[in-house]
């Protein structure tokens, strides 16, 4: 069952027009937050809603906010719109089709944590989204929703738009902060965490576009409305990007807890005469599930319990026509290419896996290469500075184990060495 919360009105009206957005109740929750609820009220509602981050890690949003030290330093909210996780295209839709909702979410979040100057970091390739968002921001500013003395109060929220330069790693929150500061986009060593020492060395929260966009709805309908949907520890709605071997790929907003099979059907089901054999449920960094898992509930905890993750909410379905050696190479190549190169295992190990898979694909593989792939992928995992390095093993290991025959068929073509 699809729902319309964030996606309400998309495809029906032009939500980029502030008047249309306002006519449907837009910016009313921003007004209510400032004039009635207060920052503590917003914080409390967010906490009770059970909202978890939609950027990948699924961390409870109100908890993250509560880590900010009360030390009187300036604080920053940064909206992460670098969306580059393979298979993920939900933030792009929100940015391009309903930018005011994103702005309203950022404003409410900023107010809740006490950020007087917030930032949105937009993926370099989103030229259209950047243009649309800037135009919407100008409208919001002209309407008095952004800037100083909001609604006649002493609340100030400035919003600066920054466009990235096209690096996946800049979606990782500390690399993003480096990039925003004009430094090389590479993750920072933690601790210290951004909540303590983030943008320009000050306490900072980084939140995903979708996470923040849910805030106005939580305020409007009440936290209980959000918390009552889906599994108790994984509540609310989610915009899921479905792609791969399906008839109608796209974004589908559903309650968490919807089954994978339902999501497959929403996307029109498998292609004619084909059968789904594997599901990557949470972006390129997640391990595959298989046809026997189609009945699973799609939520943070169920995915984790099955050795994978919900991640950014991007599902790729693979049918029985898939060459998993090629699929594995495509993904490994992506990570090797996007590694910032800072730390040894990710930099060297990713590249090693890439050249080994290429060799296998071109008929130069030997039997022992398959075990070596697994061993190298494993030994590069868990010892990196940021999670990117650990993102290579899950998909590779899951498909090598499941479709070992496919990998063996490539190496078997090699003449036995004398």
């Amino acid at each position: 069952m699809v729902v319309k919360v964030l996606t309400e009105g998309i495809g029906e009206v032009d939500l980029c027009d502030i008047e249309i957005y306002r006519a449907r109740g837009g910016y009313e929750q921003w007004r209510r937050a400032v004039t009635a609820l207060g920052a503590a009220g917003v914080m409390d509602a967010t906490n009770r809603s059970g909202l978890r981050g939609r950027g990948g890690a699924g961390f409870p949003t109100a908890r993250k906010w509560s880590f900010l030290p009360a030390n009187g330093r300036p604080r920053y909210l940064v909206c992460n719109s670098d969306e580059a996780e393979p298979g993920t295209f939900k933030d792009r839709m929100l940015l391009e089709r309903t930018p005011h909702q994103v702005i309203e979410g950022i404003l409410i979040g900023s107010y809740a944590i006490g950020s007087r100057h917030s930032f949105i970091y937009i993926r370099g390739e989103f030229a259209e989204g950047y243009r649309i968002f800037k135009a919407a921001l100008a409208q919001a500013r002209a309407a008095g929703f952004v800037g100083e003395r909001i609604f006649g109060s002493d609340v100030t929220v400035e919003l600066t738009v920054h466009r990235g330069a096209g690096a996946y790693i800049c979606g990782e929150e500390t690399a993003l902060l480096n990039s925003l500061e004009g430094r090389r986009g590479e993750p920072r060593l933690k601790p210290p965490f951004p909540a303590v020492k983030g943008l320009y060395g000050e306490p900072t929260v980084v939140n995903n576009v979708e996470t923040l966009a849910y805030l106005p709805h939580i305020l409007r309908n009440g936290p209980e409305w959000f918390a009552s949907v889906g599994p108790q520890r994984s509540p609310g709605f989610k915009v899921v990007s479905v792609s791969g071997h399906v008839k109608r790929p796209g974004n589908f907003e559903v309650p968490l807890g919807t089954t994978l099979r339902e999501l497959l059907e929403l996307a029109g089901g498998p292609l004619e005469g084909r059968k789904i054999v594997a599901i990557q449920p949470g972006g390129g960094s997640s391990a595959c599930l298989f046809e026997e898992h189609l009945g699973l509930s799609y939520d943070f905890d169920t995915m984790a319990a099955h050795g994978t993750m919900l991640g950014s909410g991007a599902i790729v379905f693979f049918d029985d026509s898939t060459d998993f050696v090629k699929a594995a190479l495509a993904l490994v190549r992506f990570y090797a290419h996007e590694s910032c190169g800072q730390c040894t295992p990710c930099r060297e190990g990713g590249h090693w896996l890439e050249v080994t898979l290429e060799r296998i694909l071109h008929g130069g593989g030997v039997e022992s290469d398959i075990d070596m792939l697994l061993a190298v992928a494993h030994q590069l995992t868990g010892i990196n500075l940021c999670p990117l390095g650990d993102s290579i093993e899950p998909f590779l290991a899951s498909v090598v184990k499941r479709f070992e025959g496919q990998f063996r068929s490539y190496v078997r073509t090699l003449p036995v060495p004398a």
Partner: protein
Amino acid sequence: MTTLPKEVTLSIDGLPVTVPEGTLLVEAAKAVQTDIPVYCYHPKLGPAGLCRICLVEIEKTPKLQIACNTVVAEGMVVRTQGPKVEDGRRAVLEFLLLNHPLDCPICDKGGECDLQDYSIAYGQGMSRLAERKELKPKAIDLGPTIVLDDERCIVCQRCSRFDEIVTNERSLVVKDRGQRDVIATATGAPYRSNFSGNVTELCPVGALTSKTYRFRSRPWDLQRTRTTCQQCSVGCALNVDERHGNVLRTMSVPSDDAVSEGWLCDRGRYNVGFYADERRITSPLGRFGDEWVQLSWDDAIELWATRLEEALASAGSASIGVLGGGRLLNEEILLVRHVMRALGIANVDWRTGRQRQASPGARGGTYDDLENAQAIVTLGRPPSQSAPVMDLRIRKAVLRNGARLISIGAHPASSFVPATHLARLSDLAGTLAEVERIAFVWDGIDAALGAEAEAALAKLAAEGKHVSVFVPGETPNARGAEALGLLPAGGALDTRAQLEAARGGTLRILSIFGANPVLHHPAGAAFVREALKRVPFVVATDLFLTETGRLAHLVLPAKAAFEKDGHSFDLTGAVHAVNAAHGAPPDALSDGEVMIALAAHLGIDLPSPRELADWATASPATIANGLGDAALCGSLAPARDGAAGLRLAIAAHPFAGGGTVYFDDRLGELRPRPGLLLSPATAQAAGIGEADLVDLAAGGRVLHDLVATLDGNALEGVVTIVDGLPEAPANDFGEGETVTLGNVRSSRALAGSVV
């Protein structure tokens, strides 16, 4: 009130360790002599968490953790050995060696390479890589001093972090991403820094090497001597590495926390080749008319002694002058002083350049005072050029402790950190209201300004502020020469008065110890030359026939600083040992040995070695009390001209000076070209463009063909030239003098016309 840091106790490989709270695990392990391998971590640069070689196992933590960024906790149980740790280490080493060329047999780091050492200790000996190794550029000329081999680089970022954290110059960066990443300069321009050599020591592998040391030796063939750098007054500890009579390289002393903090500047590090230059004087030389004749030491000393006795008998000790001493070691200074006093000679002055004073007076500070100051004020020439490693402390104070850096006068601070500039000392009043600890760095040149500063500091001190004063010496041991009394006492002649007496024909003998007043004395080259020509007998000790030596009658071959033993003061007055690291040419004698020979000839009793050693290692304060010299700072007001026009500033440069640096051809690229520095606005007003050739003139004195450099840091209305360049001697000009610039030509047009 200081509270003792709290301590925590943890266990490392079963051994209990107690360390202060906040200690990093990697440091705590050193307390129990446990080796945790590191590449990117460096105690002076802090953790970076990049290489991942320092993995350890911590009880109750499922994943291996990096020891370099883990802070100790009470009761923590750490294992640096065992299968899990060893697997992690082996994995990281395998990754590091994957595309590493392993060209150890031709790599300068071989034998002292952390990658080699850890691979042997923890590696697996076999690579599973079936592919061809990735090739990266080799032997890249990174700048005048450094060669980069990208293939060997393990991207630990120590070099780029040094260039950011310590120097704040930020020219070294990592370029590109993933396996394609390489070290490069941010702009692609050559890597130029006064501190470039340090990256070769920080580099844990053979990726960064010094041009002067490439393919020269193996570490196990080198014999190391620890000494103190004698190239400027900072006093950095220095290791000299020698093989078969050749000094092959110099290295920092990482534990030298009180002075250099383990860094060296490029002058201290790279200016060593001169000792073997073929132009070095290797026997005493006598000049008879225009002809130089080699003399034996006996004949040379006899000649000198006889001339001294004659002059004493005929014209008295007032007809004898003694100059120099700021390059000598304390023992040598004491011997010069002793012999001259025994002969009743009082016309003694170490100050053969612009500096009038090398001691900070009663408020002298330590380098720690400098680092902990909340405001650092530089008056006159900034230490960034005259005392390079001291400037790293200043940068640290500004960058890490938030100190304010304020420069006063015609010279900007040039420290690569934010600084403000004030035109006059009097502008300082009121800007230091909230500051409690002030460090004051004065170049010791303008005595009147020094007196004005002293009054201002006395006022600040009276307000209860902690004031510390620093005076970098113009010569390495200026502080020693001054403290040990190479100054004219009781109305005797200072340098200028001696030169005037010489011109007036009343000076009969002039003895010059390791000094080159023709190039450095502000009376100007022509004036000094004329004076020297009128003295019947001039004797000079030096390594080379300098502008001054060429006018002497007797030139004695001296020893370089790393060829002799003794002590020297650094600019804060701390005593350091100087040790012979290298055998001098057979016929060279140190100035001290020369004094001993002279004393023997003249029948002068010498102090006992014990007495000499006591004074040479005493503190300046003890000496002041014991030897009882009042420093007589004769005033030498430099030619001043208040008229409107361009004001001349004369700056120091680490690679200027007509001495040693001019006698090592490998340093050619580092030597400053004769030029002048202008702010863009000043240049525009004068119709001068970047790289134009310009003549600079004042009162009939001219420097020709100076290359103009425009610098946004330079002050308006000021033109800066560099002191001590033999091709364009600045000592014909005075600091603050009004100069005119003319005969402006585009250097390109000129180059074109030649073709």
